[in-house]
């Protein structure tokens, strides 16, 4: 698999399909730009692209598609600011700009030789950056025989990939546990409570497990505490960090975090490599 990286000059990619995941989150399927590797956009699970609207700007968005299907470039975007609102307002047929893929992804190669159990912990729109890794784990049962997904969202409406979650729950070999912080009067019959509660409720062998965690930073901190409480070593935990990323190539320095640049050294880090920096508020 040879990956061509579009570093400094954005290329245009046509929007093929837009699907609403929640009131403010959309999954956008772009046609892989024909100029890149013959229309195949190779990436590693956990990597991100700078996605943009011509004339407005660009933002870092994790790739949420299947790495085994490089002809389609899939991102899941939550409209939280001017650029993401413009991106999610784009209609199929129009073009967005793409630069990437950037950064270090999830340890799908390292885990092959090591652990036999995978636990994926996602909070809110932390699930899309993990979905490519989940696809990879599910496609390779011999390498990853035991996979568990723990997913928490604000409320039932904000759950992303609802149809796929149902399929994974009913028809995949992955154990899926979902919880929401607030059920309100929605008629939700699933679990209510924070995602960290789920960690105490699943059985795994802390010496054999590799944990992949993505979500808001406060959720990450509590999740890491819970995993450590269950005996999972920091070298077996991977987290995806988020900062203000602009260039994607560690030149601009916006995303510097201690000795690291999130855009290049991350966004996925092994926890023991960043443990000393994790709780520092000054950086």
């Amino acid at each position, binding site marked *: 698999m040879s990956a061509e990286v579009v570093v400094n000059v954005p290329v245009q990619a046509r929007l093929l399909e837009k699907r609403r995941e929640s009131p*403010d989150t959309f999954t956008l399927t772009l046609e892989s730009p024909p100029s890149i590797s013959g229309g195949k956009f190779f990436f590693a699970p956990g990597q991100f692209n700078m996605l943009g609207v011509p004339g407005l700007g660009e933002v870092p968005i994790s790739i949420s598609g299947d790495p085994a299907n490089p002809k389609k470039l899939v991102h899941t975007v939550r409209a*939280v600011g001017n650029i993401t609102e413009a991106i999610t307002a784009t209609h199929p047929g129009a073009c967005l700009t793409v630069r990437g893929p950037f950064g270090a992804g999830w340890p799908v190669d390292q885990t092959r030789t090591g652990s036999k159990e995978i636990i994926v912990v996602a*909070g*809110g*729109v932390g699930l899309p950056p993990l979905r490519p890794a989940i696809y990879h784990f599910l496609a390779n049962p011999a390498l990853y025989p035991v996979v568990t997904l723990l997913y*928490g*969202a*604000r409320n039932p409406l*904000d759950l992303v990939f609802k149809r796929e979650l149902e399929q994974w729950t009913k028809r995949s070999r992955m154990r899926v546990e979902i*919880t929401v*912080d*607030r*059920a*309100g*009067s929605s008629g*939700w*019959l*699933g*679990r*209510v*409570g*924070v995602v*960290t*509660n789920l960690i*105490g*409720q699943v059985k795994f062998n802390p010496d054999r497990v590799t944990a992949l965690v993505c*979500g*808001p930073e*406060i*959720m990450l901190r*509590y999740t890491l505490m819970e995993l450590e409480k269950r005996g999972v070593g920091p070298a077996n935990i991977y987290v995806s960090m988020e900062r203000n990323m602009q260039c994607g190539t560690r030149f601009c320095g916006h995303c510097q975090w201690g000795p690291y640049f999130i855009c290049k050294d991350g966004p996925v880090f092994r926890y023991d490599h960043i443990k000393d920096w994790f709780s520092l508020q000054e950086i």
Partner: protein
Amino acid sequence: MFEEILVRHPFFHQLNPDQLREIALHCEQLNYETGEYIFKEGKKADRFFLVLHGQVALEIHDPGRGPLIIQTLCDEDLMGWSWLFSPNRWHFDARAVKPTRLLAIEGSWLHEQIEADPKLGYLFMSRVAQIMFDRLQATRLQLMDIYSKEPAQPMRGRKL
């Protein structure tokens, strides 16, 4: 049979066989169908529950909106400590949202035991405190509303 359940549950680790046998004599197994209430807000709290199987929703009823689920409890969770504290009334409704099997321990009897035996009382209360601590932390996390676009920041703008 109840003794085996108690032995396996982490809440009862370190209790000696005599204590476990005695507690088991004051247990009963209860089964609930989906939608059935286990207890209701304001009613006398006289039992301590272990969820053996299923799922229970702790709810509060709002006249305008119906039942609002605060938290769900499932396999191996403990439920109900209002029997320990005055006025010994349930603060929420508990409803089975799936077919549920519970182990119920007689609260007034247990209360007498932990008052009479300080060592057992300390062990019991420290376990209950750990669960309360975990649930308090989880509630704080819920209150922060971390997934919203603008997470709750009660101190925002305040000069300290």
